[in-house]
Every structure is written in C-alpha cells, then in structure tokens.
C-alpha cells in the first residue's frame, strides 16, 4: 500500500523526515509520535503536497512527487485534525461538495453524501448548518467528507480530538467499521495510545522525523503477553543464568529477579526448569507492559530497550524482506 526508501523531506534547510525506510500493508496503521515528530509532514508527503528531497517511495502504486499526485488524491480520503468545516453550509451540502471536488458527478456526489452521512450516523441532522453542530458531530462530518468518494486509503488525523469518552468510543467504532465494512485502508495518526491500541493492526512510532519503531500490533500484543518476571529463592549461579536461555530471552536480570520473554507460550515450564536446575522458583508474574511503556522506550531508550516488544527499531529494507516483501513488518502472529 505504502513504501518508502531512504525518504528525506526538507523545509528549506530543515530536515523534517530523515532517511525513512518503511513499508506498510493494507490495514489500520497507527502512526504514533509526539508533536513535531513528523506525522503531519509524512501525511503531506503521502498526499503529494511535498516532494522528497532524497529517496522515494510509492503510495497505492503511484510514485511520490509524480505529476499524478492529483489523480492519487482522488483515491485518498483525508480527515484533518483541525476544524475544517464550512460553517454556513449544512453537512449534506459540504459532503456533497467535497465529493464533487474528488471527481464525482454532481448527482452521484449528492447520493453518496446521503449514504455516507447515514453511515457516520448523521442522517437526521444532515440539513443543519455546521455552525450548530457539537464537537462529535463535527468530527463525523469530517469523517464523512473523507469517505464520500470511497477512497482506497483514508488518513485520519487525531479523529478523537476534543471528544468525550462516549464520543471517542463511537468514533473509534466508526474507524473499525470503515475498515470492516468498506475495506478501506486507514492511517490513524494520534498521540492517544489507547486509540491506536484499539484500532490499529500495524504501528509506526515516529520521532524527530525518524521511524523509532514499527511492527504489527498483534505481534506486539503476543510478545507482551509472553513477558514474565521470575523470582528465584536464591540468586542463580552463572551456569544457571546461562541455562535460562532454554526458556527464552532474558531481557534483564539482577539479584535473583529476571525479566524474561518466553520462547513458547507455556510459562509453567519455568517450574520444571527450576526443578531440573536445582533451584526454587518462588514467583512468576506476567509483565503487563502497556503500549505507553513501549512508546516511551521507543522514543527515549536505545534500540536495545525495544527487545521483547516485537517492534523493529530500524525497519528493514523492504526489498530484503522475503515472504512479506512489501511489508517490512513481522507477520501477524509471528515474531
């Protein structure tokens, strides 16, 4: 769906995206990163509004910076973070307008506006002027305009911005519905980890214009589920510590306390291992690492800190990856 190779984007002398090599498969992709991390620049580049200074890539098969950018934008929907509503027009008028601007004939655009406003749950209030809408309704109008022309890929920039918990839940339900019912690829840019955790099946963490980590959410979840803390009655001898590798990867260990990622999904094997090696395992605690811990490690730690998360600190060259040549991600369920 999207692939970059050594992509660099500049604003004059300022490098906004640096050496991005990344390949993303069709699905819901969570784009995480703090303000100024390059998320918006990346979206602008994907929309063909900025040209790469170096490197390149493709979006839906169209090369970045190609003269076909306008044609590409007809296949992409974009829901901005900010309030880009035409205040003196109704939801129906403006969604139909955006549909026409995306290349639909006027009549078809009006039909689609009705359909898509029904899809986002605004059918009853679609003739009211946007200036009278609540924040949740405004977000849904923005989503409707992004979907009116049935794009193959939709960029959602902070779709839950300003919403109360209930509105947020409904918006995330809609995002999942867009994927499930319309089959549209979704890029969800957010700084809210829970949003990404709930919707995304792939994750990209950006900071200072660089990809800090990328991988499949399912792989990450499975990996996090295999992390345990082991406490032994006495500190392990050197040969016992070395033998721990039979169980899995030791991520951290000191004073008889070990942070371990099990190779197999059967942590109880640790008790048998302890018996076999003449020691006593007194505690086996699941490490319920949350996504925010992973994010903090990705942003502020070293690549070693990402060990055991299932994420790759430096995504591989897409050409070098075998079975998932266009992916660069560990396959769901793998890794």
């Amino acid at each position: 769906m999207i692939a970059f190779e050594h992509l660099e984007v500049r604003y004059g002398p300022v490098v906004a995206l640096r050496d991005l090599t990344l390949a993303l498969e069709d699905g819901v992709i969570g784009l995480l990163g703090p303000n100024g991390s390059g998320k918006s620049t990346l979206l602008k580049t994907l929309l063909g509004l900025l040209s790469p200074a170096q490197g390149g890539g493709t979006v839906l098969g169209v090369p970045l910076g190609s003269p076909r950018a306008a044609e590409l934008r007809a296949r992409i929907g974009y829901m901005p973070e900010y309030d880009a509503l035409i205040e003196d027009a109704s939801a129906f008028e403006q969604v139909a307008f955006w549909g026409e601007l995306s290349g639909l004939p006027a009549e078809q655009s009006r039909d689609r506006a009705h359909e898509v406003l029904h899809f986002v749950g605004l059918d009853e209030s679609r003739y009211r002027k946007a200036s009278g809408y609540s924040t949740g309704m405004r977000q849904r109008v923005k989503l409707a305009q992004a979907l009116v022309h049935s794009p193959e890929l939709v960029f959602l920039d902070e779709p839950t911005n300003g919403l109360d918990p209930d509105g947020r839940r409904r918006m995330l339900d809609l995002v999942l519905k867009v994927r499930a019912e319309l089959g549209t690829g979704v890029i969800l840019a957010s700084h809210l980890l829970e949003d990404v955790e709930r919707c995304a099946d792939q994750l990209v963490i950006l900071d200072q214009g660089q990809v800090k980590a990328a991988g499949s959410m399912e792989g990450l979840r499975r990996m996090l589920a295999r992390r345990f803390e082991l406490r032994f009655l006495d500190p392990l001898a050197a040969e016992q510590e070395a033998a721990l590798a039979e169980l899995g990867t030791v991520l951290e260990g000191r004073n008889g306390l070990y942070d371990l990622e099990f190779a197999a999904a059967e942590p109880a094997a640790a008790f048998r291992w302890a018996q076999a090696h003449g020691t006593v395992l007194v505690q086996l605690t699941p490490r319920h690492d949350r996504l925010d811990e992973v994010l903090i490690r990705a942003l502020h730690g070293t690549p070693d800190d990402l060990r055991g998360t299932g994420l790759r600190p430096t995504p591989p060259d897409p050409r070098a990856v075998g079975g998932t040549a266009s992916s660069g991600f560990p396959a769901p369920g793998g890794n």
Partner: protein
Amino acid sequence: MPIYAPTLPPRPERGLGDPPALVLARFDVRRVLRQRIGMFFLFTLGVWLLIKLVMLYVNHLLGTKTQLAGVKDLATALLPQGAAFQADFLSGPMLFVIWLLAAFVGGGLVARDTLHRIRPLMYAHPVRPADYWMGKALTAVGLPLAVMLPFILLPWVLSLLIAGGAGPVWPTLPLRMIPAALAIALLMGAVTLGASALAATPRAGVGWSLGILFGLNAPATVLAKVLDQPAWQALSPTDLAAAWPQLLCGVTPPALGWLPTALGTAAHLAVWAWILRMRTRPSEAVL
C-alpha cells in the same frame, strides 16, 4: 430502511465530474446568493437599471417629439450626449455600487477559506492551485460581469425595440461595452481576490478591498493633479474601470489614454494575481 441506506461499496467511478474550478465557483456563487447583502445590491442595482432605461426613453423622446423642443436644451444639459451617453451605461454611481458588490463578494472568497482552514483540506483533494485560483476568479469576475451585462444589453434591446437602428443606443454598443465590462470585471476580481488573500477573515477581506480601492484612489488623484500628469490616475483601479467604457466608446477627451489604461490594468492584474498565488500556495497549507 431509508432509501439512502448505504450501498458502499461498490466504489463510484471517479473522474467523471465537473472540473474542480467549476465545482468551486458553483459552490461559492450559491453561498453569495444566500447572503442578505445580495438582496441589497440586487435592489439598488435594479433601481439604477430602471433609471437608466427611463433616461434612454427620455433621450429617445427628445430626439423624436417636436412638442418637447422647449425642454430639449435643459435635458441636453442634464443628460450626457453622443459617445458619453453610450459610455454612461457603465459608469458613475452604478459602477461604484458594483465595486462595492465586488468588494463584498470577492473580499470574503479567499479569506473565508483561510479562516476555516478549508484550503489545506482542498489541496488534500485532487485540486491543484490553478484550479483553486480559477474557481475563485470565476466567482469574483463572473458575478460583477453578470451584473454589468443587463446594464448593456437591456438598454440596447429597448433601443432596438423602440427605434430600430436609429435609436439613441448604438447598434454596435455590445461590441464595445462587453469588452469594457470584461476588463472592469477582471480588475474587480483581481483586486478583491488579492485583498482577500491578504486577510485572515472575510470582514478583513472586505476591509482590505475597500481600503485598496479608496487608498489608491486618493494618491492617484493627488499625484495626477500635483504633477499635472493624468496618467497617474492609472494607479487607481476605480479610475481604470471608469476609463475602459470611455475609451471603447470613443469619448473625447477620455479621462485616461489607451496606454496608461492598458498598462495600469495589466499591472494591477499581475500584482494582485501574484499576491493571490503567493498567499494560497500548497506549501502554505499546514495540515
């Protein structure tokens, strides 16, 4: 189940719609026509058009009715005659009101998009900057032109109806005045769109438009008087607009010559188009 129940997918066929510039212009014109101020302009200009038609009829009567010979001298002194009568269909208070209309319409066109951050979203669609400029120009130029055309065509038709080719309005008037109206509309569109691009809100856009019109008119008049060079009037868009009907109808002497009028118009179009271009580039679009 509602009749508009989702039928998504299949995907609709894209690329079969109207050009983006036309879609933009259609949407903007609908918004302008919904505004209450539109009714004010419609009423004012309608009254003025009626006055013009009455003047035309009076002029016709003066030329044909011998009973009116007594008031002919008075009427001749009050009403413009000859080429000036022809050029008068696009001049004076009527042109001033159309300038106001252009300022209210054009002044908000770009600024409203700036205020609500519509332009970045527009460029995220298959809309190129040239489409955007063309769409806005179609509205900012098209509306004043559409308002001016009845002031040319209705008197012309009336004159043909009441007196044929020998009426007070030249049979060739549209050939002279439609190009003049186009030049005036281009000036109005360029100045007001440029002013709108400078502003952050529609009100500020209208303010900028009026400020530019009156702000340039005063120094142009002062410079022309002080330096005794009428060509300095070409600095003022309103003076340029008034000059085109005079030149095309052959009024002697015109307030401004051909060269300063043509150069002044070209300079205004270039400067304001450049400002519009610089202020609405995609790189200005912060997503």
